[in-house]
């Protein structure tokens, strides 16, 4: 099966992808002011410190926004597929795919991380609906009431 494009890694970002291989969702944290930041970068935009470490996120999140891709064809994906911007309770956002029925997604939907093995050599983080997510019929009913 066609695979999605593989991310590159460099000195700024490899901690994230190494975490993914260990099934950890790592978020970069400034060692000076403790602010979280994503996507990773060398310097803290709040205090300009170059010292950083990372935390392991809980893996819980909420859909902040999402799209359903139909066209044009994207190599490695079968349309329609959903891509969401996930807000993490730790305080950052991250983009990822959400599994299941794209028509069931909604802003505010609780999701949790999972780790998808692409092949023997690499893994991607992904998201699935979590406890408390409304099903699609409930979603339609709620929106109709609103």
């Amino acid at each position: 099966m066609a695979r999605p494009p593989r991310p590159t890694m460099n000195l700024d970002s490899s901690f994230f992808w190494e975490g993914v291989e260990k099934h950890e969702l790592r978020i970069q944290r400034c060692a000076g002011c403790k602010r979280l930041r994503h996507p990773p970068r060398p310097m803290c935009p709040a205090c300009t410190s170059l010292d950083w470490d990372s935390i392991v996120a809980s893996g819980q999140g909420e859909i902040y926004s999402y799209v359903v891709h139909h066209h044009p064809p994207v190599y490695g994906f079968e349309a329609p597929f959903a891509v969401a911007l996930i807000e993490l309770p730790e305080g950052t956002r991250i983009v990822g795919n959400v599994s299941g029925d794209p028509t069931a997604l909604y802003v505010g939907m609780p999701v949790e991380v999972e780790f998808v093995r692409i092949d023997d050599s690499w893994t991607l983080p992904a998201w699935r609906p979590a406890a408390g997510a409304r099903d699609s019929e409930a979603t339609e009913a709620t929106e109709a009431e609103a």
Partner: protein
Amino acid sequence: MSNSLSERAAIVGIGATEFSKASGRSELQLALEAAKAAIDDAGLEPADVDGMVTFTMESSEEIAVARGLGIPKLTHFSRVHFGGGAACGTVQQAAMAVATGVSKAVICYRGFNERSGRRFGAGRQGRTPDIPAALPTDWYAPFGLVTPAAWVAMFARRYMHEYGATSEDFGRVAVADRRHAATNPKAWFYDRPISLEDHQKSRWIVEPLHLLDCCQESDGAVALLVTSSERARDLRQPPAIIRASAQGSSFEQEMMTSYYRDDISGLDEMGLVGDQLWEMSGLRPDDIRTAVIYDHFTPFVLTQLEELGFCKRGEARHFIADGRIELDGELPLNTHGGQLGEAYIHGMNGIAEGVRQVRGSAVNQVDAVENVLVTAGTGVPTSGLILGRA
């Protein structure tokens, strides 16, 4: 005038090729044809041109255009980054060059075979698997978020959620653009207006965007000639005085994916451009009779109207209702048909329309135009202009 650049320079020539889906000529030829047309329009000769500004994405080098036109000397050449966000920025570069005396006459140009050649709508694909993506896309491409429509759709969904905007609200922009294109013989969609129902029935590209929310891919070129306001008085055409020009990039700025700001229902960088335009020109939104608002995707037209202060945050859907942005409305937008209707030349055809509205020579001319506001690409570091009558 708080800024010494205001009214120091003017656009005195505009030139373009036809807008098509298959030009059958090289991108360099398109750029040359447009540049020559702009010089002719101003009543100047190639040897009068001594500056060139284009986009970093442009394939035709400044020196190739200069060689082609036989220009003997260039004293300023520069490029502006970030895709369509560069459009009005090229004019600002030119204005700064002529205001400081670095150059006397500067050509700003953009030309491409963007439909028959490499199609922008396909996004950042074309890599075979396992070949590293460009680093800035690492956080998107592995998840299939690779096209301009998809990047914008992510903002649009949140905007809808925050303010209750609907797909029909976006559709009203497309209907206005296509209405204007329908009476512009140079527009690709000449004589082909659409209804809101057509918009709603058009297929999904990336939900929540329909096909008719997305601009065209076009072949063509546009060039603009900028010189000092003083010299502009003696040239062939009524000058479009550059009352204000601005660029903007804001906190946590990314190229189409500034998803990490506290609030993503706005376009901070366009707010920054707007603030500068009003301050530099001394004008207010009420002073603008017509505007060219960058329309690669319809949702960002609403956001821009809010960021520029034409209406309050979240209220653009009400502002654009009832035909306000159509030709007989209070603020006609994109009277050439926009990039949805005329052509997608990375915003440069919109600047040309702004010049025509100031001259009084547009096919869909608005009455009593004193000032026109023009914006450049959205979702990217961007730019804007206010052009006015001398």
